[in-house]
């Protein structure tokens, strides 16, 4: 694979952010479109290429003027496997794979900043940071937006704001989201209530890979729905306040579990750790669930410590496409399950010093 996107880790996985035990990452995504070109669903291949060229020129200028370095990749220049790895690392959406002919992606070295080109909108700027850091993520995204707007003419109207292909994104064009790990709320069957409360506030809950994906490994992505009529700061405030409440509920549920069912909980997380450090065949689904248990066990100091960064990395490393990209070849499901088990054993044993 060209350049940097082959290496294992993105900066957001390092577990360094505030509340990183429960809030895995914070993300800001801004939708922007160019004025003079039809939106991606209605543009020709030539127009799509022109959009990529214009964005690439703006990115070049951004690189020249600042300390960050962004690289542009056309999706058609990447192998299908490489594209799927980008999805697993949350750098592009699953939907973007469908525009492999006309799409491109721009990525910073540490993978904090990225831009999807010609997905649903001409540009989708994205910043992902570790832990609960919505404000810094918004500031970084807005700075990138300003820098690009010096070269690019973004479609905007004073009355309804930034214009997007889908009216669900019009206005700020912003989707702010947090990825949260909520095992205790799940174990105590409180999720329907929590999800209901979140939806009442006009926010949405989704699975690990966004719209239409499963909530695997007790990972839930919470994001704003409304993009018109509120400022970016208001949207972020709402989401942050709600996230803090959910954090508190998750912590309370953890304490309750410790109080009411300590042995069962110890048993569960220890079994998970035992399986992950000794199993020889491990499916992706099972790995996600066990990693969730181990993460909870580490947070509650019920088992020997594993750095949160390792657990975050394993979330991506154990995904099918990533495993295959590390192997350097396409693998069948059985072979993947064996490699996955072996990778997890190595990663946990090396770092935890068993």
């Amino acid at each position, binding site marked *: 694979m060209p350049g940097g996107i082959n290496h294992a880790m993105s900066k957001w996985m390092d577990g360094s952010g505030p509340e990183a035990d429960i809030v895995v990452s914070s993300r800001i995504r801004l939708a922007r*479109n160019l*004025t003079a*070109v*039809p*939106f991606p*669903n*209605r543009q020709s291949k030539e127009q799509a290429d022109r959009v990529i060229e214009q964005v690439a020129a703006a990115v070049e200028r951004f690189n020249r003027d600042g300390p960050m370095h962004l690289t542009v990749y056309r999706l058609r220049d990447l192998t299908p496997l490489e594209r799927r790895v980008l999805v697993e690392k949350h750098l592009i959406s699953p939907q973007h794979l469908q525009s492999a002919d006309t799409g491109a992606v721009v990525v910073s070295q540490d993978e904090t900043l990225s831009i999807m080109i010609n997905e*649903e909108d001409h540009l989708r700027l994205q910043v992902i940071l570790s832990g609960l850091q919505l404000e810094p993520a918004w500031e970084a995204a*807005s700075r990138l*937006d*300003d820098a690009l*707007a*010096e070269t690019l003419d*973004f*479609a*905007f*109207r*004073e*009355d*309804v*704001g*930034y*214009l*997007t*292909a*889908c*009216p*669900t994104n*019009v*206005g*700020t064009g*912003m989707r702010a989201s947090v990825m949260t790990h909520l095992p205790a709320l799940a174990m105590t*069957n409180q999720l*329907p*209530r929590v*999800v*209901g409360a979140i939806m009442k506030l*006009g926010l*949405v*809950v*989704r*699975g690990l890979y966004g*719209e*239409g*994906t*499963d*909530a695997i490994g007790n990972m*839930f992505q919470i994001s704003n*729905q*409304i*993009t*018109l*009529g*509120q*400022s*970016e700061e*208001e949207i972020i405030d709402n989401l942050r306040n709600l996230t803090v409440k959910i954090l508190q509920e998750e912590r309370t549920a953890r304490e309750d579990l410790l109080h009411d069912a300590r042995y069962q909980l110890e048993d569960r997380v220890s079994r998970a750790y035992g399986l992950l450090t000794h199993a020889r065949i491990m499916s992706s689904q099972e790995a996600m669930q066990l990693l969730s248990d181990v993460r909870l066990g580490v947070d509650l100091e019920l088992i020997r410590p594993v750095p949160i960064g390792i657990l975050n990395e394993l979330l991506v490393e154990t995904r099918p496409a990533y495993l295959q990209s590390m192997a350097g070849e396409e693998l069948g499901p059985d072979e993947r399950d064996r490699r996955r088990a072996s990778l997890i054993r190595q990663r946990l044993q090396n770092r935890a010093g068993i």
Partner: protein
Amino acid sequence: MLCQQCRKRPATVQITQITDGHKVELHLCEECALKSGKLDFISDPQVSLENFLTGLLQSDINAAAGARPAGVQCQACGMTYQEFSRTGKLGCAECYRFFMDQLQPVFRRIHGNTRHHGKLPRRLEGAARARREVQELRERLRRAVEAENFEEAAALRDEIRLLEASLNQEPGKTGG
């Protein structure tokens, strides 16, 4: 109220289902609600925002059939409103201009709002910010008059005049 399914536990979840235009309300306990599969919208790809939106647009169209001229079309990219309501996606920036009348109720339904209050692009910042301020002052003026707070109203009126004058003098350069 007891759960309508098991009739044992208290109903804590209310599910509203609309099938073929008929509204059915179910009152269930969490356990039965989960079992019924009606709460797995988290994992159900069918219940995406997009599907929700096109459903909403279709019902808009059906409701207004006849009342609205059918042939609204974007003169820039050729997208018709019908086509938009089928796909949920607009064709270009100009579509917003040609479909604005139809889009207003859609914005209200999705966002509960029809005006942008967020970031302004740098190139428009000055003038746009001043215009937004004028609008907010007008709203405050309206409320002051309603409350018969005439002293405040007079002050607001002067402020608006001043801002508008500066806007007219130096279009694109003034601002607050």
